């Protein structure tokens, strides 16, 4: 076989031999790389599910570095469990573009609303916040979780409002609705083993349908009007009674003053009278005449118009006197 290096098959064989030793290294590297591809990491907000040929070996792989056999033997699915997701339930809300209410409306041509216990309509919108708490159920037991969640939530809202009068729903009922929806929805989600947990139900908006909303707000306005009328009347009363009391007080005071005045005057006058009387009885008619003359003097001085008439013997006046007062 001395000519093996010169014959064409010999050259081919040599080339192949060199090549294959090179390829062997590459192959080895590939195998090592393949085996290393089995390392995987789970971050802190995830849970891993390890499957071997589709069968779940471990549904709670904790965060950290792990090893599994590479494809196609093992497979790891990472499920975010601490992420809070939100689903807007707008089936009973206004018909807007792309809203869930529109789907129903397009099918039936009917408005979107939810019935209340006293046979009224309300528009309600809420947000369901949920997390995955059971990754196994989430992955392998439920399909289309969003459709599931939406359907169950809608039904829960119907159940809740079917028992509630509209006035309660619109005012103090909101919290009760949210609480009921959360509890009942969780019960239903557990019953179908969805693997989901409702963390919060936020009742975004709850109001009468647009068509009748103005009449509802008018009721609120009427309540305010009622308050205002009563307040006005009360302020009238608050003015009226103190005013009356002030008036009453004033006239009573005046009457008291009158009483005092009358009595004092009487005392004064009688005192004077008694003094005069004493003088009269002491001096006889003299004092009496003095009083008369003094009084006449005063009168004569005061009277504006005076006419003096001389009388004849027969007691008749000699002339006629015409009296008039310039206007």
């Amino acid at each position, binding site marked *: 076989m001395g000519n093996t290096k010169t014959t064409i098959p010999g050259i081919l064989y040599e080339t192949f031999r060199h090549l294959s030793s090179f390829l062997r290294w590459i192959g080895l590297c590939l195998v090592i790389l393949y085996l290393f591809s089995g390392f995987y990491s789970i971050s802190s907000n995830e849970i891993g599910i390890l499957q071997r040929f589709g*069968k779940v070996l471990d549904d709670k792989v904790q965060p950290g570095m792990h090893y599994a056999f590479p494809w196609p033997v093992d497979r790891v699915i990472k499920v975010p469990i601490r992420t809070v997701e939100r689903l807007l339930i707008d089936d009973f809300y206004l018909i807007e573009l792309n809203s869930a209410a529109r789907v129903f409306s397009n*099918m039936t041509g009917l408005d979107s609303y939810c019935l209340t216990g*006293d046979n009224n309509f309300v528009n309600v919108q809420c947000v369901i916040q949920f997390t995955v708490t059971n990754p196994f159920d989430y992955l392998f037991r439920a399909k*289309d979780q969003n459709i*599931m969640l939406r359907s169950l939530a809608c039904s829960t809202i119907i159940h809740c409002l079917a028992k509630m009068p509209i006035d309660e729903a619109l005012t103090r009922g909101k919290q009760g609705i949210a609480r009921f929806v959360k509890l009942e929805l969780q019960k239903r989600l557990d019953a179908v083993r969805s693997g989901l947990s409702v963390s919060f139900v936020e009742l975004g908006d709850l109001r009468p349908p647009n068509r009748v909303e103005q009449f509802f707000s008018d009721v609120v306005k*009427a309540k305010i009007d009622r308050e205002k009328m009563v307040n006005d009347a009360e302020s009238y009363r608050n003015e009226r009674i103190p005013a009356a009391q002030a008036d009453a007080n004033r006239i009573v005071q005046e009457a008291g003053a009158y009483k005092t005045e009358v009595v004092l005057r009487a005392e004064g006058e009688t005192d004077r*009278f008694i003094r005069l009387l004493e003088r009269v009885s002491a001096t006889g008619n003299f004092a009496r005449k003095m*009083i008369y003359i003094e009084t006449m003097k005063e009168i004569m001085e005061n009277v504006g118009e005076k006419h003096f008439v001389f009388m004849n013997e027969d007691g008749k006046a000699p002339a006629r006197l015409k009296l008039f007062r310039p206007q």
Partner: protein
Amino acid sequence: MKYIVGFIVATGLLLGFVYMNSFVVSQSEYVILTQFGKPVATIKSAGFNWRWLGFVQRANRIDRRTHTFTTQPIQLLLGDKNPIVLTSYICWQVSDPLLFFQALISTDIATQKLGDMVNSQMGNALGDFAIGNIINTNSSEVKLASLEERILKNTNSSAQKNYGIEVLQVGIRRIAYPAVVAEAVYNRMRSEREKEAKKFRAEGREEATKIRAIADREATEILAEAYKQTEILKGEGDQKALKIYSEAYGRDKEFFEFTKSMEVYKDILGRQSTLVLSTDSDIFKYLNNPEGRK
């Protein structure tokens, strides 16, 4: 060297053989193995499985997860002849894969059949319910839950028997009224609110009028009481004064009349008065006779 080549080729062939003759069942599915279309095995547990070559045995995968879907809206009559439009949701899963496989083949068809079943059950069941059992402010009268329970029970037994489907949950997802009825409800809501608003305003007016009337009455009472007191005070004063006068004047009636008259003359004869006086008056006694007139 030859061994290496041989090994690689052998491994390749082996893997190919394994690939062609095996399949993997996921945790989320069942597999019905059919041989020339005839089911030969049902595999319910997940894992690695063998089969004959692809064209001989086929693995038919059936999703075992819970499906949820919504039925078409349907208008139905309640027991009291009230029409309502309903939509329901149904949660279901395959409980008997073989029966499901033989009966229905696909999920879409299953959905359709279940929807029809639920809607027809709903039509039957609603005949036993009045509108007051669907919505009521008295929560013990609301029988929605028992309605759903009944639909679930009936649908489930039939679906399980015929299609190998277990219905897990049925719920009403939407209740509406046909347009005409809804119109009436809107009108009633409107008139109820108008009535309420009117009531509030009337109440306010009534209350306000009452408060004003009471205020007026109280004020009048206060003033009347004050007048009464005033009169009493005045009366007391007058009485006391009169007593004082009468005690004093009782001492000389004639002189009292004289002094009082003098005072009254002074008061009534003022600047506006016109006095026509005869010179015969006592005051002029000395006017033309120093000795005085007789």
